[in-house]
């Protein structure tokens, strides 16, 4: 039996939730106040994911950087690999919101897309 302790992010309550795991399976969730807390805790201990947001350099644009995000959430453990994969990426202006700047980032199967339009200089 393994116990994991987390703080719920659903609201400012910040409920301290304890999840009991056995062989990777959730056996018990305690400490939550509402359904959102239980759902968050189950996901967070079995498959924690995040949207990663960062920037990449733009060539020939009115601004030197364009903001980007992963089009879907990716496993939490891949955050740094994703940031690393984007470090060398350069895109050419013009850039439109939604343009793919890197496909299948760090083997996640998720594309990284622009979140801002950058006109050509």
């Amino acid at each position: 039996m393994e116990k994991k302790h987390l703080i719920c992010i659903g609201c400012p309550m910040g409920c301290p939730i304890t999840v009991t795991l056995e062989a990777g399976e959730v056996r018990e969730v305690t400490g939550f106040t509402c359904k959102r807390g239980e759902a968050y805790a189950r996901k967070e201990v079995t498959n924690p994911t995040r949207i990663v947001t960062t920037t990449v350099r733009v060539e020939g644009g009115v601004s030197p950087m364009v903001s980007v995000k992963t089009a879907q959430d990716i496993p939490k453990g891949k955050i740094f690999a994703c940031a690393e994969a984007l470090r060398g990426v350069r895109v050419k202006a013009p850039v439109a919101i939604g343009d793919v700047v890197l496909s299948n980032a760090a083997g996640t199967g998720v594309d990284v897309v622009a979140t801002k339009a950058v006109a050509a200089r």
Partner: protein
Amino acid sequence: MNTYDIVIIGGGPAGLAAAVSARDAGVERILILERDQELGGILNQCIHNGFGLHTFQEELTGPEYAARFIDQVQERQIPYLLNTMVLDVSADRVITAMNKTDGLFQLSARAIILAMGCRERPRGALNIPGTRPAGIYSAGTAQRLVNMEGLLPGRKVVILGSGDIGLIMARRMTLEGAQVQVVAELMPYSGGLKRNIVQCLDDFGIPLKLSHTVVDIRGRERVEGITLAQVDEHLKPIPGTEEDYECDTLLLSCGLIPENELSRSAGVDLSPVTSGAVVDESLETSVPGVFACGNVLHVHDLVDFVSQEAAAAGRAAAKYVRGELETGEAAIPLKAQGGVRYTVPARVHPHRMEAEQVVRFRVGAVYRNAYVSVYFDGERVSRRKRQIMAPGEMEQVVLKREDLLSRPDLKAITVTIEEA
């Protein structure tokens, strides 16, 4: 001198939403004045996601949220001037501004919407002892450098203040390869969202030290290190608790100050609590025809609420321009009591209210299982239980126009926290 129906000062989220709603209410001659080189305001540097859940039912990044409103402004062909600094606003609504192409110029407006936003509290306002080397930035300045200019302000970082910008920058600097050693917070609680504490600090193993502050900054040319100390219940450093940190950068995330120099020059009454204008239900200030919305009015937690408030200001300014805002009615004051720090609006004219009036406020401490109560004079008219209220989040109550109209002798409305 050019004359406009409505001039909006500031092209950030508040100014954009106000412009769109004023145009949709039928106002033709609108002009937005923006000092930066693009519309969108602070959202342009807030590249993280989490914006727009209320407005668009999806999680957008800051630039995406801004783009939705910029598109609406452009679809409506609302004119705007960029790189334009407003220098003065007079009580008779003459605006003095300047930019590189037009030089110094004046405009006359039938109504003005103040939407200038905030600036960050700088080191000079924090009384931190020590030398004055390079490497001390407000968190928002660092955010602009990293996200818009592509520059990393430093590699070994300490952050003072656990407001959301500080937390977001802890994660951002970490992702860019910097080592964020600690976030120190003077208060015994964080002013930031739980979600940001978990996803910006815990995810990366960055410690949050509550009840701690910076008591020394070292380094002549560049920051070489800082000293943290624990503070007591009076927020005074406790001798013997000092800890030294080596770092080349100190980020300050210690609060936002509404940028109200122009409001002051127009003679607008300001609240000592919010540092923003005192407004009524129409978001009208003490100066007739001058309206305020967004963070220049009071610091918001969510941009969605800025957009809602600014849209209301735009509708009210449109009514004012058409002469439809009733005048002469005495305002009923709203009193903030028992842990409620302030209310926006601070007074209401019942006949000018929309059917439902949202009253927003913040509390001064963390409250659990307490009630938000509204009194009409001595009579309690509503009581709502809240599991938790915290200073970092805005709260609201809703007043109904019909309830106020049915009480013609009402003298004052009180919003208060009552503990169980």
